[in-house]
Structure formats: structure tokens, C-alpha cells
């Protein structure tokens, strides 16, 4: 009898200790979980709710459920479609350019010499310039009348270019500014990755008489492939949020030429007070971003497994 209660209290005590152990592990997660639920999960759910509701501007809150009406409105909006296309064009131009330039410059920068550390450190500087500030700098430099770039190109007989006034050039300018700010990030990651490559493989290749193209194609690229893929994903996650540079330079213009999706939704929500439609648009963008991110992550995992 007494043995039985003893066993019972022991298991109870053990279970109690186990519970306390789990609680002590999870208590580390508590502050971050609480904050992220409040500022990330809850707003997302609220956006979802607004996107399926009418929005009452008198009480400033979602009112009745309207099903997929807002989504139909969003998808019927030609300008929204245009902003998605504009964002797509920007991403297709900017991402490959930045990755190729970044890895190319990292290769140059990794040549062994005394000043290597210094020049790598200097590459940190453009990276920390706020996007709005970089927009401002480039607006000054690219001015068709007084800009230093206009003057410099003029030295080679190139006539003044209306960098922000022409639809095609405005997109190129946005890509240029974003590339200036983002390439240093790729360079730093790439040069760290290249330094970590085993040297003996390259020595063996050069003993075997491989030229630089063969070395690049058969050794460097395959070994760097996972890090190229990872850098691409990180850059994608940053670039898809494009907003600041456009606001500081073209403000979406001329016309709708650089009206990226984040700017378009921002205007729908906070200038036109179309909270329901804009929430539906935000959800559409969220889903597209998530799906593409998942595909990219899956692709980079696949790439890694194949090597």
C-alpha cells in the first residue's frame, strides 16, 4: 500500500519536473513569440479579414463579409496588373545583374595583395546608405541639365539623357540605383564564399593546364552554386520590397512606368483610402512572394543536393 503511493508521488513529481523543464525551455521563446504574434501574425490575419470585408470609413473598421469581391476588384484593376508587371520587369533586370556583377567584382577583389582588406571594407559603405538617400544622391548626379553624369557622358559625345523622364530610362535608372546599393552586399557574401574555397583544387587544375574559362566553368561555378543560389534568395527577399528608391526619385512615373506594386498598394490604401481592395492586393502579393520564395528555396536545395 505504502509502496504504491510512493510510486505515485514519484511519477507525479517526475511529471511535474518534466513540465517545469518544458516550461523553462519555452520561456526563452516567450518574448519573441509574444511580440511576433502582436506585430506580425495578428496584422496578417487582420489584413486577411479586411480583404474579405467591406470597409466602413466612418468607424474605420471592416464591416460585413463580402466574399471574394475585393479580390475580383483587385484583379480587374488594370493599374494593379501593370504594377505587378513593372515589379516583375525590375526584378528580372536587377537580380541577375546584381548577382553577376557582385560575384565578378568579388573575384577581382579577392586577388591577394596588401590593400585587399581595406577595399573590402570600403564596399561596406554604399551598403549602409539608406535607400531614400541613395535615391537623392543619384537624382542629383543624373540630372539632365546639371548632373555630373550628364557632363561626364557629354565628354564622350553622348547627348543628355532624360534619366527619370523617359519611361524606359526611368526603369533603368531605378535598376541602376538599386544595383549601386545592393551589389556591395553580394560582393561581401561572394568574396567570403570564394575565400572559403579549397585552394588545392585550383592548383591541380592549373597544373593540368586548365585555362581560366575551364576553371570557372568546371570548378568555381559548381562549387559556388549553392552560395549563388542562397545570395539570390536573400537579394530576392530584399528586392521584392522595392519602394523607397522609387518614392525618392520617380514617384512611380513617368505615367505608371515605375509604379512598383508596393507603391501602388500604398497609394490605394493611404491616399485613396481603398482599404479593402488594397488589402486584397497585399494578400495577392504576399501569396505570389511566398510561392516564388518557396520555389527558389526548393530550387537552391535541389541544386545543393545535386552537387
Amino acid at each position: 500500500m505504502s509502496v504504491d503511493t510512493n510510486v505515485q508521488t514519484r511519477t507525479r513529481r517526475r511529471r511535474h519536473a518534466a513540465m517545469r523543464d518544458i516550461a523553462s525551455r519555452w520561456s526563452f521563446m516567450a518574448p519573441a513569440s509574444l511580440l511576433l504574434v502582436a506585430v506580425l501574425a495578428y496584422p496578417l490575419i487582420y489584413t486577411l479579414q479586411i480583404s474579405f470585408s467591406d470597409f466602413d470609413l466612418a468607424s474605420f473598421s471592416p464591416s460585413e463579409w463580402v466574399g471574394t469581391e475585393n479580390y475580383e476588384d483587385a484583379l480587374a484593376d488594370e493599374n494593379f496588373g501593370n504594377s505587378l508587371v513593372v515589379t516583375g520587369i525590375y526584378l528580372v533586370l536587377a537580380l541577375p545583374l546584381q548577382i553577376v556583377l557582385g560575384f565578378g567584382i568579388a573575384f577581382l577583389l579577392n586577388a591577394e595583395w596588401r590593400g585587399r582588406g581595406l577595399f573590402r571594407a570600403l564596399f561596406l559603405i554604399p551598403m549602409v546608405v539608406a535607400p531614400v538617400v541613395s535615391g537623392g544622391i543619384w537624382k542629383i548626379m543624373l540630372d539632365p541639365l546639371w548632373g555630373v553624369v550628364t557632363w561626364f557622358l557629354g565628354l564622350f559625345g553622348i547627348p543628355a539623357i532624360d534619366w527619370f523622364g523617359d519611361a524606359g530610362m526611368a526603369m533603368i535608372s531605378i535598376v541602376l540605383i538599386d544595383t549601386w546599393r545592393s551589389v556591395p552586399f553580394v560582393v561581401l557574401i561572394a568574396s567570403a564564399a570564394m575565400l572559403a574555397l579549397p585552394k588545392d583544387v585550383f592548383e591541380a587544375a592549373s597544373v593540368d593546364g586548365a585555362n581560366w574559362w575551364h576553371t570557372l566553368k568546371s570548378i568555381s561555378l559548381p562549387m559556388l552554386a549553392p552560395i549563388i543560389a542562397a545570395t539570390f534568395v536573400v537579394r530576392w527577399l530584399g528586392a521584392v520590397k522595392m519602394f523607397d528608391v522609387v518614392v525618392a526619385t520617380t514617384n512611380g512615373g513617368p505615367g505608371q512606368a515605375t509604379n512598383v506594386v508596393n507603391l501602388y498598394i500604398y497609394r490605394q490604401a493611404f491616399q485613396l483610402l481603398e482599404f479593402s481592395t488594397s488589402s486584397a492586393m497585399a494578400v495577392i502579393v504576399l501569396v505570389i512572394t511566398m510561392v516564388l520564395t518557396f520555389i527558389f528555396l526548393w530550387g537552391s536545395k535541389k541544386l545543393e543536393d545535386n552537387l
Partner: protein
Amino acid sequence: MSAVESRPAGRRGGLVAGHRMRVWAGVIVCLLFLVPLGWMLLTSFKEQRDIFTVPPTFFFDPTIAHYFDVLTRGGFAGQMLNTVIVAVGASVLSLIAGAMAGYALSRLKIKGAGVIGALILASRGVPPIALAVPMFLVARALGITDTHITLILAYCSFVIPYVMWLMRGFFLALPKELEESAMIDGCSRMGAFFRIIVPISVPGLLSTFIFSIILAWEELLFALVLTNRTATTFPVAIAGMAGDTENGANWGELAAAGMITVIPVVILALLVQKWLIRGLAEGATKG
């Protein structure tokens, strides 16, 4: 025979020349990337008449008038102060919460740590515009728009996941014996974390902190949505200055304001450059 002997020598000569070209090309590209900042620096010290010239002036009598104007007129000094308060506030909060969570994910064998890790990663794909409307509505309903704390909390939405990820990687690299011996000595988990782990993680914590400050420093969208006067940060002001087409001629002030915003983060970044580069690489490869 001599042909065979001369070939390696020839190749080595090619290598040296190639190496020198690579070094020079690297230096030139690096300097090219610094040109815009150099031009902003020059413009910020130019009188109006030296800014609008063809060809551009490279030598001129420098003036600090634009810095003086920017800092005394308008609200720029206040907006800089707001930026510092918000960036530091968000970073401190995120560092405490994120480091604890990162520690739990890396060391405490929490069930579902993999799922949580995937969620953190996924959160980096959430477009801020999908959070902006509800944040605005909630802040408006609570009457806390245009305050520092609102912006600080909003920034936690993207700083905390970043901190969690970086610190998780950092803690994974620490030797396990540390907290085990502390816990044998009678420390609780929390005690072991704050008394043993935190002190030896100062370099990692510091660089993550500076990362967070840089992240929060440049944010525009939430600042536009959630503030309108008293808590406005500098990106809102600069966006206004750069986008102002009517008085678009005020390049001197724009450049001076830009320099003021760049200098603090450049100093911070260079101070912890070694850690920053490693953190970047880690955030990319393991992220």
C-alpha cells in the same frame, strides 16, 4: 627541351600580369562605387552657385551653410533624434527577445524548432505593405499613431526574425559544456543563459545589434504610414526633399542631410566590419 622549360616561366609571367590587372580592376571598381558618396560630400559643401555649373566644379570655397540650415531649420534635427530613438529602441527590444529565442532554437531542443525556423524564414518574405494597413488601423484605434513606441513595435516585425536567425547561428557555434557546467553548479537555464552565455557572446550580440540598427535606420514605409509629425524619422524627410520637384533646386541641403544620415551608420559598420561580413555571409548561407 627548352620549349618545355620556357612554358611554365611564360605562364607565370602571364599570371603576374593577370594578377596585377585583377588588383587594379578591383581598386577601380571599388572607387567607382564610392563616387556617388564623394559627389554627395562635395555637393553638401558647395554654395548654390557652385552646384549649378557646367562643367561641374571640383574646386570651390567650401561652405557649411547647408549643414547649418538643415540642422537648424525645419524639423530635421528632431527627425534624426527620432530615428536614433526608434532604431535603438527597436534593436534593444529585438536583441533581447531575439537572442533568447535564438538560444532556445539552437540549444534547448524545443519541439518544432524546425517549423519555427521555417516560419522565421518565411516571415522575411512578408511584404511590409501587407502589415501596414492593420498596423495603421490598430494604432489609430488605440490613439498611439505618431509615437516612438508604435514605430519601435512595428520595426520589431522585421528585426526580431533577423536577430533570431543570426543569434541562432552564433549560439550553435559555442561549446556545449559551458552552460552544462553552470547548470550543474545549480544555475537555472535562465541564470546560465544570462550569467554564462550572454557575457561570452558580446561580440556576436554587438554586431547583431548594429545590424539591427542599420535595418531600422533606413526604413521608410512604416514611418510614412505610422507617423506624421512628432515621431517622423529621417527617411520620410529625405524622401520629401528628394521628391520635391517645385523646389528641386535645393541640392545642397539634400546632400548635407544625406551626409548626416550616412555618417553614423558608416562609422558603426566599419567598427564591426569583420563581424558584419561574417554575419552577412551567415545570414545568407544559413538563411
